[in-house]
């Protein structure tokens, strides 16, 4: 199931109100901020995970993902720009 990050009514950013333990069903209530990465689409999150797993090597990433080097670099630059925008918003 996709994690909603924006309010369907007013489009404001959602926060986490409740966390629960699947084991003992304990619930923790609060007003937690969503992690920055949670704001990205799932494929972008996967890209970031792959990037870390490849020690930040774009060449290795290109090989793993069967994409060209500039395509991987452009994708990364796009993510960096989005992160900068998010940082500026805060």
């Amino acid at each position, binding site marked *: 199931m996709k994690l909603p990050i924006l309010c369907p009514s007013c489009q404001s950013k959602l926060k986490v109100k409740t966390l629960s333990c699947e084991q003992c069903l304990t619930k923790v209530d609060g007003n937690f901020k969503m992690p920055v990465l949670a704001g990205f689409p799932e494929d972008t999150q996967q890209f970031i995970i792959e990037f870390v797993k490849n020690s930040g090597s774009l060449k290795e990433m290109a090989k793993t993902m*069967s*994409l*060209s*080097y*500039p*395509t991987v*670099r*452009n994708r990364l*630059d796009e993510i960096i*720009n989005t992160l900068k925008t998010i940082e500026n918003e805060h």
Partner: protein
Amino acid sequence: MNTNLMLNPFTKIAGFKALTAGVIGMLVAGYISFYSNTHFDGVLNIHSGLIAPMWIHLLWPFANVAFLGIWFTLFGMVFSQSKIRIIDIFGTQAFAFLPLVPASLMGFSKSIERLTEKLIGIDPKAIRMDMLPLNDLLMVMVIGLITITLTVWSGIWIYNGFKESANLPHKRVIPVFIIGIIMGMILPKYVIGHFLLN
């Protein structure tokens, strides 16, 4: 091969691999064009009827790609927000020449020659359809259509190669591309035609 890759193979290939494939394509096209008297006199330009030394035929595709490579690298370095690699720009531009390789065969058709001979010296206003051999006319039209298709295809690859390898903002890609193509049609033609052919 899916449509996206037909129009933009550069999500999958760039850099040294693309450069190697492009260089092989240019050598093959240059070699064939010597025997077919075809020449690539400028970016996206293909003409038939030139009798010149082999090295001129070989040089022309390289000159065109080199011009585009230099032009796109210069603007890529100035305007791109990414750390671009020269090998990607030259590689993608060399690869973008590949659709034009089959066009080097067009000069083998004698139809263009026969039709040209028929038309030479005739007042354009006096030309009637029944004066022209139908078979040759059809063949020239088919060759023309194929050549236009290959040229458009190569043009799309030049654009996408530049966009992918230089990662410029959209508003900058289009003018740099258009001016590059226009200058690439004129400059290599002028330099080789003026300094090496005369």
